[in-house]
């Protein structure tokens, strides 16, 4: 029983990271109808930036906040330079853009910081949380930070005018323009926020998976699985999907013999395919109906 509880809690803590990645993916998907394959690499690069600042002696939380700001601005810059010009281009052009972005960021990180694995600090320590062997302080911190951020985002989107404008622009761009909303900037803002959310995921998971240019590959695939499970049209679904996938991953790894770390990724992919076949809109998504 203790093993079970332990695995559930561990699942929730990694699930928090998947939830962040899924949310970042869904935010961009809502804004431009494309999956951002480079979301993980953007998060990885942000994590390296924070690591570099700490190497230069910047304290953890200051580096954390500065990285959030950097990621936000970088996200906006990427949208303005690369994806705004592609807004009316065919899907495949956009996909090529995302893959290019993926390998550019990955290679640049490798060039600057090389591909050796680096230790990444945790501000929470790794002692048992509240004296319990079930969960470490870092895992508890991961959950805490994620919940804090999700709560903040919820209030932003639900109760501020800017949040309302962003929701309107994502739901019905033409109507949004007709009430005077600059939808183009709302998309850029969405990119900035998605990049910042991703950077939090990167900085929280780095102490667990260690820092290196390919660290986010697996995390992003789980993030995709979470987004597909919850529904690509539902930010709430993405978050729930993230936690579910985290728990699922841990339980399967523990209880099904033969599924070690090697088979964990295929399981995420199998989950994506299963959901797409059985319930394409996901648990909380709206089925997409196109009028012809």
């Amino acid at each position, binding site marked *: 029983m203790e093993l079970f509880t332990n695995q559930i809690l561990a699942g929730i803590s990694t699930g928090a990271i998947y939830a962040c990645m899924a949310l970042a993916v869904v935010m961009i998907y809502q804004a431009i109808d494309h999956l951002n394959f480079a979301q993980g690499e953007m998060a990885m690069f942000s994590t390296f930036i924070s690591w570099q600042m700490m190497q230069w002696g910047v304290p953890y939380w200051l580096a954390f906040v500065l990285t959030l700001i950097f990621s936000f601005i970088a996200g906006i810059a990427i949208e303005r330079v690369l994806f705004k010009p592609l807004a009316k281009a065919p899907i495949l052009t956009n996909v090529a853009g995302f893959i290019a972005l993926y390998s550019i960021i990955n290679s640049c990180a490798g060039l600057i910081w090389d591909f050796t694995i680096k230790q990444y600090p945790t501000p929470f320590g790794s002692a048992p949380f509240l004296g319990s062997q079930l969960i470490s302080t870092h895992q508890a911190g991961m959950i805490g930070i994620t919940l804090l951020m999700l709560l903040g985002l919820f209030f932003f989107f639900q109760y501020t005018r800017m949040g*309302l*404008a962003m929701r*309107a622009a994502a*739901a019905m761009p033409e*109507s949004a*323009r007709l*009430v*005077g*909303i*600059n939808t183009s900037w709302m998309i850029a803002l969405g990119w900035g926020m998605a990049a910042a959310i991703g950077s939090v995921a990167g900085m929280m998971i780095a102490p667990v998976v260690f820092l290196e240019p390919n660290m986010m590959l697996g995390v992003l695939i789980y993030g995709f699985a979470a987004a597909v499970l919850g529904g690509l049209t539902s930010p709430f679904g993405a978050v729930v999907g993230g936690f579910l996938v985290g728990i699922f991953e841990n339980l399967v790894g523990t209880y099904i013999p033969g599924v070690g770390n090697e088979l964990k990724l295929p399981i995420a992919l199998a989950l994506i395919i299963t959901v797409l076949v059985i319930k394409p809109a996901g648990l909380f998504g709206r089925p997409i109906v196109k009028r012809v």
Partner: protein
Amino acid sequence: MTAMLNIKDLRSYYGQVQALHGLSFALNEGSLTTLLGANGAGKTTTLRAICNMVRSTGAIEFDGSSLMGRSTESIVRLGIAHVPQGRGTFTSLTVEENLQLGAISRRDRAGIIADIERMYGYFPVLKERYTQQAGTLSGGEQQMLAVARALMLKPRLMLLDEPSFGLAPLIVRDLFKILGRINREEKVTILVVEQNAQLALELADQAHVIETGRIVMSGGAKEIANNEDVRKSYLGY
């Protein structure tokens, strides 16, 4: 009277297809004008061209300054509210959020709250449903919401694209009465595109008839309503 909106030699294109062929007319401040015409004559395109939602050449001036080349959202922010065909309702958001969005370019918080109450005065049914998802409203209620949302901008000019579309005749009468009140009481200049020519001519004081992308007849609404050709083509008697 000075012209608030002045359109000269407007030519609009959908890709290679030209929809407007040198259309010109002017709107006087405080007027209620209707654009009449058959399907495909260019009524909707004219409204879309005013808000720069279709590629156009020619001249469109609002209060003496050109609208050509401005973005849709910046044109709206000048005080031009556009209720598009299909109403443009934010169906996944609540009724109250739709009204808030109408006023998204305004800064006066107290004024916005007061105006939402005023809209509930015009359309009491919206107050009953203010937390409801707008997509769950009936067609008539959605049209009322669309008009209310447009008014939340505090517009000087309101463009309406077939407000009667898909509505029961009684509801259309109510809606048009309210449009008349808005025009008189709030001094909002209104340009309404209508298929229901009879009703539109009763409501309006000015009318223009469009055929294949050009204005073929202009005048007072009464005068147009009495014109033999218009009666035959659009009123059916």
